[in-house]
């Protein structure tokens, strides 16, 4: 790019840069306004900081809990549960979808059940899981899995069965079996779909874990929120929510990064 840039091109570039700066400025402005409004109103006593907490109280709470490591313990538990359920959903989702792709009869038989289970508000199942599985981490994991698995299976099965039939015919013309179709076309051709499904699932699993922790836990951010609200430690509650905002964003960004790296490597 050593060619001299024309004035019109330069103007276009400048214009674009200006627009992006404006967007970034507004985004930061909203955050600063929100935080200062929150801090200001509680300082001035317009809002009760015992109920509404405040940014400075949240930071103070975080520093105290970081000092004895408890906050990292709770974050660690929640993250561990989220990742565990996420990987189980990923593996089980792919395996079940392969099974449903492989056998059309099973797929047809199970279809209405999958649709019903997918539409069911899974939170309704959570109390049963406690009774069946006990007041422990198993319940939380199952709760998170139940939230994401049905959608995953429906989604991936659709993606598998909608694969270009001519590509499958190609495998046949090269003497391949259904197993070859799976390993050479269906799975590698569905990777973009699997990744975009993972992007949805990481969020769903976090939701499921927090619901699970609300009901049956003695550690984790969900536990901290429920416990904090019961003993009127609203600082704990709001700090946990702020941390959850950061975690949710970071997890999504991580999956976005994986997707970008994959697309960069596989399309030119």
């Amino acid at each position, binding site marked *: 790019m050593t060619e001299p840039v024309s004035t019109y091109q330069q103007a276009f570039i400048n214009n674009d840069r200006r627009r992006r700066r404006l967007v970034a400025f507004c985004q930061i402005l909203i955050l600063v306004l929100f935080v200062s409004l929150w801090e200001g109103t509680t300082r001035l006593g317009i809002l009760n900081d015992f109920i509404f907490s405040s940014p400075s109280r949240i930071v103070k709470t975080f520093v105290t809990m970081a000092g004895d490591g408890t906050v990292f313990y709770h974050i660690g538990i929640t993250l561990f549960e989220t990742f565990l359920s996420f990987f189980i959903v990923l593996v089980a989702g792919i395996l079940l979808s392969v099974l449903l792709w492989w056998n059309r009869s099973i797929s047809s038989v199970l279809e209405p059940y999958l649709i019903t289970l997918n539409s069911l508000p899974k939170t309704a199942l959570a109390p049963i899981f406690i009774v069946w599985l006990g007041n422990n981490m198993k319940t939380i994991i199952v709760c998170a899995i139940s939230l994401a698995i049905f959608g995953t299976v429906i989604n991936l099965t659709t993606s598998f069965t909608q694969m*270009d039939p*001519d*590509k499958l*015919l*190609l*495998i*046949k*013309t*090269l*003497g*391949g079996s259904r197993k*070859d179709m799976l390993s*050479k*076309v269906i799975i*590698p*051709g569905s*990777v973009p779909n699997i990744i975009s499904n993972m992007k949805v699932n990481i969020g769903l699993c976090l939701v499921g874990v927090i619901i699970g922790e609300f009901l049956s836990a003695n550690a984790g951010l969900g536990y901290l929120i429920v416990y904090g609200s019961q003993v009127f430690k609203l600082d704990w509650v709001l700090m946990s929510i702020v941390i959850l905002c950061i975690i949710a964003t970071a997890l999504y960004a991580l999956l976005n990064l994986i997707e970008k790296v994959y697309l960069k490597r*596989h*399309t*030119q």
Partner: protein
Amino acid sequence: MKPLLDVHDVSYSYHTLSGETKALNRLSFQVQFNEFLGIVGPSGCGKSTILSLIFGLLSPESGEIKIHEALCKDHTMPIGYMLQKDHLLEWRTIYENALLGLEINHQMTPARLKAVDQMFRDYGLEHFKNAKPSQLSGGMRQRAALIRTLALNPGLLLLDEPFSALDYQTRLNVSEDIYTILKKKHKSAILVTHDISEAISFCDRIVVLTNRPATIKEIVPIHLSIEEKTPLKARSAKEFQDYFNRLWGDLND
């Protein structure tokens, strides 16, 4: 001498819930060793169905398809099938695409890989081995697809309108390339097409089919007064137009 392929009195019907559609009605023809046979007919008359039957993707309702035992003995895959589009898998490089058939048949032997490398050199794709399909022109993609088929060293090639997805100029070039390659390797071929000129320029004999249910209207041997026929040379032979008119008449009866 026994023919390479003997299609004898073959019929086939498609079944759907709304009824039965007779596609092929009592077809009989043969393919000799080193012969290029063309099959032309109106679109939708069941031309591709014939290839599916020969390859074994479908079984004839009645009649018989016999393949010469020499073909089964000397080749890993006796029959190679080239589809209308190249269907190169976009997540694989050109080289990986060319090896797909060998992978599937567990034939990744040094000898086979050497033969594939040689074809990449011969067909001008050597510098594109690590390219993705999207980086290649239509003609190059079709040649890559040909290497993928030839890697398994089939004796008989089924070509299902393999040039129809290409623009006119590329189409003439690719058909010239593929013709030369297959003749040099002493392959036999069946070319299915709706393009009469393409059939005359490419084939030694042409089977003309009627509308569905397809029957054989006539089988036309092509004799052109040129030396060393290639598809491009054939188009300038003086008999070309006569054959064209004859086949055109057959199809428009």
